[in-house]
């Protein structure tokens, strides 16, 4: 073995430790600890034999669920209503979101962009249940108030996401059409829209998944559907009936989850 040993290739230098990352991590940890301390959460007491027994008895009251045909029919109607509210709210929001996304992506100049973004932020920052409480004043108790509430909040979310998608679409196809004499609407509809649409649909389906959860509880403040039934039966301590409603909620949420995941396959990622 006289052959000269070849030196190993030099490893790249060890990167400098990221001080800012550590500071941020420490800050996050500190915030978490401070939160637990501030709330004075004693989860130790939660796991004591006494409270476990209490919880156990509480859970046992929910079984067996009430499966009387009459009640099942009522729950079925509630479930359909919840489905309709979530779908209608999402649909209205998608339409309004598209309209607001055009100025929000900077197509109508800077002032319009600012205004549109501010509107979207305001719509988004108010939670659905609060919108629902306001809409009950405007439209009366019932599923329509729930659908409007979902639509208002979701418009804020979708408008922002749609706008961002539109900004990321390559501008060349639209410019090519516009420069060869197409009108502004045609240039947008045949060049940029087809590029953005799959992502828009993915976002809409994803929001629908989240809205079905929300629609299920909007009844708490008078928005109809399963939430109203659940709130009613829980407040008069009819646990078995509440359990049936919970099962129905679980079933439709799982169904919509699966359907949306299936439809979204191939449309592009949507995690926002």
């Amino acid at each position, binding site marked *: 073995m006289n052959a000269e040993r070849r030196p190993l290739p030099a490893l790249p230098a060890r990167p400098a430790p990221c001080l800012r990352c550590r500071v941020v991590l420490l800050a996050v940890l500190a915030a978490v600890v401070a939160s637990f301390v501030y709330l004075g959460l004693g*989860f130790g007491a939660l796991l004591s034999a006494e409270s476990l027994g209490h919880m156990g008895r509480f859970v046992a009251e929910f079984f067996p669920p009430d499966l009387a045909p009459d009640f099942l029919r009522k729950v079925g109607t509630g479930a359909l209503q919840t*489905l309709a509210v979530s779908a209608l709210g999402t649909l209205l929001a998608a339409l309004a979101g598209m309209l607001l996304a055009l100025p929000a992506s900077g197509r109508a100049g800077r002032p319009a962009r600012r205004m549109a973004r501010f509107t979207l*932020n305001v719509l988004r920052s108010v939670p659905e249940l609060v919108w629902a409480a306001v809409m009950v004043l405007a439209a009366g108790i019932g*599923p329509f108030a729930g659908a409007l509430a979902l639509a208002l909040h979701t418009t804020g979310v979708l408008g922002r996401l749609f706008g961002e998608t539109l900004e990321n679409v390559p501008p060349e196809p639209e410019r090519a059409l516009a420069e060869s004499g197409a009108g502004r609407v045609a240039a947008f509809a045949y060049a940029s829209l087809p590029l953005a649409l799959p992502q828009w649909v993915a976002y809409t389906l994803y929001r629908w998944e989240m809205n079905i959860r929300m629609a299920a509880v909007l009844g708490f403040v008078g928005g109809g559907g399963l939430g109203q039934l659940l709130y009613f039966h829980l407040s008069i301590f009819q646990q078995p009936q509440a359990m049936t409603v919970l099962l129905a909620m679980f079933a439709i*949420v799982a169904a919509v989850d699966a359907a949306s995941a299936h439809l979204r396959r191939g449309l592009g990622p949507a*995690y926002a």
Partner: protein
Amino acid sequence: MNTATASRAPRVDPQARRRLATTLAALVVAWPMLVLSDFQPWRLFDRDSLAVLGGFLGAFLPPETAPDFLRLLARATLETLAMATAGTALAFAIGAPLAILGTRALSISRIGPGPLRWRGAALRQMVRSLLMVLRAIPEIVWALLFVRALGLGPAAGVLALAITYGGMLGKVYAEILESTDTRPARALLEGGGGRLAALCYGLLPSTAQELVSYTVYRWECAVRASVVMGFVGAGGLGQLMDQSMKMLNGGEASSILLVFLGLVLLADLLSTFLRRLFA
């Protein structure tokens, strides 16, 4: 010649008929939906409800700024923030391990044709089902149940957030890990590295940004959710809002709404900052 073909090209959208049919079909599907959800937009312009709403919104200006109320508001805001942070932290503690267990990107049994492949697949399926069960019931329903079991207070809200968001974080983390380039992790696993090493050196470098921004987004959702937790008695801004709404006190409601807006903008800034940090 060219101009001739151009002039013979159809002037209308070649897919016009198809689009029209799709639209009509969608309308037919949508009709029962409109009926079920009581779609009556004209009700919005009913004189009586306009008067109630107008009175309520009219009282929005000026927002309530009495020192007493502001002190109450500050305490409720802190409580909401603390509830969201604690809930998200617990959700992370539930979701992250389950995501690592359930993601296909870190599966060793998938690499070779081993005899025990089905065991890994079964475990992943179990983890996925567990995550689905966790997230299928909305957080506010959990909160309502926990308030019954644990009494009024933030503990119910925190637990509810932890359960639902644990399920969501676990699912989305697993999906993000699978949707990136999994070859570096696979190379590490094939070279004999452990799963954690493969995660840290093979997957995290390309996904950290997305994971962080989704986590911050969930925190933002948690802030909004802990706002509504108050509606069922779990404390925080929601309880305050509930009281103001029930008394139709527009000034207080608008102060609270302004705080919501501030919190959401804060979460946006935080998300942008963290995303840049991990870029």
